[in-house]
């Protein structure tokens, strides 16, 4: 075998050549563009959306998961029973599930994962979603019983989050750099600053996936993202950062542009404790001074849906309250006069995303039209977290709240809006104790109405998901009900 014959060489070359010909079969590798690189790859120890955008559903699975329309569907738990009183959940787990390092998955791993997430020293960013858990018991290898301290209508929803994925005790500590899950793709390589590579896990227990290789490429600069798309260096950019070029990409037959919805309620967050913003009339005046469509057109190139409360318009429980804070500068001026406000200057702090920076300029102009001056400061995220979020040293800011169903933040008494209302607390408490869907819908409406009536924040628009993809790719998510780039159903057509 030291000297292979020429015939063998030629044969190998021919084989290679034919197997590499794209016409032979559909492509099975994909390069996905992302704006932000995840700081680590452990969804149970970080809140960065980019972590879930790489690993959610691809590498890690939880008991339940979200599908492309945001519904909670079975994942590692194939089915479950809920006791009459809503306190005891019994999950049935499949057998034959293995982690990517070959270790077997069973009920003990579920117990380990959940106990770890709610432990004293846990650095799980959503520690609070595990607070309601009283005990987790592994009844046998395929059955887990979770007992809650009080009924929680959202429990299955919470368990679908990336923060609640199931990890193995053997590998949990290293998941930040070497994630080991039960998903259909296993982690291969991470070139920090450049890309993460995943490949198909042959031992996957569920439906086999079509793709063999998935590469996530990180491109922060919008112009570079456009160039990479045009040069076909990346196959898809699910959250494309350069909306101004979407028309051009859409006109190109090589690409398709899909505009969907995200969970991002983009709001003019208001410091409700700072006079005169503690006066509801002033907050209402600001709301009427804002022309939402002008912001969507001016800052988002027309992509976005106006909202009148802190709720996702594509959710069936949404109620349209935009009329309650419609664009009416005269009313705005009248309200300011009624509140006795003259010479008002507010500090508007803007984080880096373009919705905030561009939107902030439009809002500053609109506020000036009704006699409110703004002092605009551009801040980085770290500074925003420190000054606005932590120290609450701001009057107004623009930020997109991207958690699904996050209306509960209005009852967090340590939250940066500085808003508190006993009535809202009562509504949310009742909601948490209610499991009947119809009754829940009514309470959710009530909560939306309440924060709209109180004009807690300026409700601007629901952030659009503007995705670009090669026209031959099927199965990408159109909407973004959670932060994820689920590759499990993605395939290429010939």
């Amino acid at each position, binding site marked *: 075998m030291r000297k292979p014959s020429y015939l063998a060489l030629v044969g190998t070359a021919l084989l290679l050549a034919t197997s590499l010909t794209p016409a032979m079969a559909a492509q099975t590798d994909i390069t996905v563009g992302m704006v932000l690189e995840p700081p680590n790859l452990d969804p149970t120890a970080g809140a960065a959306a980019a972590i879930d955008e790489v690993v959610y559903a691809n590498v890690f699975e939880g008991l339940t998961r979200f599908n492309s329309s945001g519904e909670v569907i079975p994942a590692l738990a194939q089915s479950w029973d809920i006791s009459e009183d809503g306190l005891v959940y019994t999950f049935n787990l499949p057998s034959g599930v293995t982690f990517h390092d070959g270790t077997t998955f069973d009920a003990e791993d579920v117990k380990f994962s959940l106990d770890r997430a709610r432990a004293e020293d846990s650095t799980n960013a959503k520690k609070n979603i595990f607070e309601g858990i009283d005990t987790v018991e592994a009844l046998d290898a395929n059955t887990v019983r979770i007992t809650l301290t009080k009924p929680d209508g959202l429990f299955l929803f919470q368990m679908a989050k990336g923060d609640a994925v199931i990890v193995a005790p053997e590998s949990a500590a290293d998941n930040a750099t070497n994630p080991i899950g039960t998903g259909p793709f296993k982690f291969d390589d991470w070139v*920090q*600053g450049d890309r993460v590579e995943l490949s198909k896990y042959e031992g996957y227990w569920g439906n086999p996936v079509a793709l063999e290789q998935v590469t996530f490429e990180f491109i922060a600069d919008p112009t570079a993202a456009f160039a990479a798309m045009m040069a076909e260096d990346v196959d898809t950019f699910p959250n494309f950062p350069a909306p101004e070029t979407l028309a051009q990409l859409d006109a190109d037959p090589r690409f398709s542009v899909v505009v969907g919805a995200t969970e991002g309620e983009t709001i003019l967050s208001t410091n409700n404790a700072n006079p005169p913003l503690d006066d509801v009339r002033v907050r209402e005046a600001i709301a009427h001074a804002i022309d939402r469509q002008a912001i969507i057109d001016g800052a988002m190139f027309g992509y976005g849906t106006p909202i009148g409360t802190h709720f996702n318009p594509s959710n069936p429980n949404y109620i349209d309250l935009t009329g309650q804070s419609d664009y009416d500068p005269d009313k705005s001026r009248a309200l300011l006069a009624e509140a006795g406000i003259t010479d008002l200057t507010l500090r508007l702090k803007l984080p880096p995303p373009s919705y905030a920076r561009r939107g902030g300029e439009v809002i500053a102009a609109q506020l000036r039209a009704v006699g409110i001056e703004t002092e605009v400061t551009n801040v980085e*995220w770290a500074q925003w*977290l420190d000054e606005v979020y932590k120290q609450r040293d701001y009057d107004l800011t623009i930020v997109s709240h991207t958690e699904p169903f996050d209306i509960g933040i209005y009852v967090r008494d340590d939250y940066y809006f500085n808003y508190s209302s006993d009535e809202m607390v009562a509504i949310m408490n009742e909601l948490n104790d209610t499991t009947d869907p119809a009754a829940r819908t009514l309470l959710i409406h009530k909560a939306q109405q309440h924060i709209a009536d109180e004009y807690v924040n300026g409700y601007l628009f629901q952030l659009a998901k503007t995705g670009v993809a090669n026209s031959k790719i099927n199965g990408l998510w159109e909407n973004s009900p959670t932060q994820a780039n689920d590759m499990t159903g993605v395939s290429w057509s010939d």
Partner: protein
Amino acid sequence: MLVFILKRSISLLLTLIAASFVIFFVIEVVPGDPASFMMGFEASPEAVEALREQLGLNAPLWERYLSWIVGLLQGDFGTSYTYKVPISDLIADRIWVSLPLAAFALTLSILIAFPVGVLAAAKRNSATDVSIMGATQLGIAIPNFWFAMILVLIFAIQNRWFSAGGFPGWDEGFWVGVKGLTLPAISLALPQASILARVMRSSLLDTLDEDYVRTARAKGLSRRQALWRHALRNAMIPVLTIIGLQFSFLMAGSVIIERVFFLPGIGSLVFLGITQRDLIVVKSVVMLLVFAVIVVTFLVDVAYAFVDPRLRKGR
């Protein structure tokens, strides 16, 4: 010569110590907490506090400075807050992008600048000289990131000869790596070559006016012979200085080009470190860059001494 090198070494060391102070304490002043950045704004305060404790951010400033310095002396740059891997690993990966890129750009710059500069000087005030001066003026004026985008537009989007960015890695083969760095290197080299060519030209013209060149001419050498044998070597000192500065600049200053081409280099590591408040990464990498710049300056100083024997006396 030895005394000269010794003196330079001491000043090198003092500069490093001063730099470590400035870097550490100035970066501490920057507002923003790494832990709260990592956990995001929906995180619970307890989780953020647990992380601060885990990262050792609650220790007093002096203690952290000392442990950082002691670590650096032992070659331990610390562990990145965000990536949770040793910073030396991060640097080790990226140095193989940044260093070759800087070397590639500098080589291009020298290869362009030398002939062009010498030609312009040799043909002083001719049409060639004037057009070279005009072209280099343009080369300096064009911002390199804009030039980079034009290159991408032509060679990546229209012709598809190169990819629009990213770095395939050296494991894919030497020429694949070189190809990946070509557009960035050209965009970095253009302004540097322009500067270098102009320095080359004016430095040569200065020496051509010196007495010894006139003597050489009087002795019977042609203008060209005098230029090659006598003027060129003496004109090298300012050129070497500029080359040294350019190398430091290319190592540390390619942040923007790395962003345009989304290259995983040192510059983008610092940039990410700053935006994500991964302060330990910023400190260690900046310190490393300072070290590199000081060493390059030191080497340039030594190179002067080779070119100009008068400097070896160690005044």
